[in-house]
């Protein structure tokens, strides 16, 4: 296990979303802390990644890759605010 941060999710999330979600603002479902996805603490490596709130350590986002699927669990974030491309 090694710890990275939400910056490292950029590629996987860009396979799903049209925008760069690492610059999106999340609000943690556990403690209400809000910051950009890039600042989450990320435990991995792929294929199973868990991103935790740096403030309360609750799981904010989970990303699992299988050979033919990508499973994104966003139960830990109550809100995602995504900048629109200028």
């Amino acid at each position: 296990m090694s710890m990275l941060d939400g910056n490292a999710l950029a590629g996987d999330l860009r396979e799903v979303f049209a925008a760069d979600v690492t610059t999106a603002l999340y609000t943690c479902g556990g403690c209400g802390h809000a910051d950009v996805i890039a600042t989450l603490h990320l435990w991995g490596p792929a294929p199973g990644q868990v991103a935790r709130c740096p403030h309360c350590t609750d799981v904010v986002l989970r990303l699992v890759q299988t050979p033919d699927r990508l499973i994104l669990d966003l139960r830990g974030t109550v809100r995602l605010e995504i900048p629109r491309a200028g």
Partner: protein
Amino acid sequence: MARAAVSGRLTWRVATVAGTRWETPTARTLVLDVPDWPGHLPGQHVDVRLTAPDGYRAQRSYSIASAWTGDGPVELTVQRLDDGEVSPYLTDEVTDGDQLELRGPVGGWFVWRPEQTAPVLLVAGGSGLVPLMAMIRARGAVRGRQPFRLICSVRTPRDLLYADELARRVRDDPGLDVRYVYTRQTPDGWPEPAKRISVATLNSHGWPPDFGPDCFVCGPTSFVETAADILVALGHDPRKIRTERFGGTA
């Protein structure tokens, strides 16, 4: 770019190794030709994917070391982690003409844009220097005037990445300062003993918080947290401190 805009999503491309060079005994730069590369911002990274003959895949993120000037290859500098699954292959096995699967550029947060006018403080721990070097190179390419300071923590003089180029840029790129901190062994005659970065280091060799610098900190997790905590304690605006962590090993 046009093709990417159609689907809006990012897919893997095949890059060809056009050259390699050792930066230190354990870090190697891969020079990659990537067809239809859309360009990148300094600080962005790529994902590299390796597939074994039995179909097993491993994927890792690597920072881009080069600046994009509208043309040319994409350079990655890879630090070998001895217990790593991917990095020893990239440092020790890959040769010219080999092909790698690559996805990117990605990441819009840990980036510096040459339009930014504030002074910049770069704080690197070990190979955390790689994305910061892309920022220094991008500033050099556009002859940027933003005052740049780099504080670079390395174990020993042998572990310095880009030492000759940085020395040249300090001489030729006006407004760039570099300060090294050695954590295990210093060069002969170095004026201070081996030590870790401290409040005094960042206070003496960074920018005063009043200058409102954009701060970029990259390195191992413990290094990044220590450096970012010190910057906040010194009075820097947390919103102007951007961090990127890699791996658990120091």
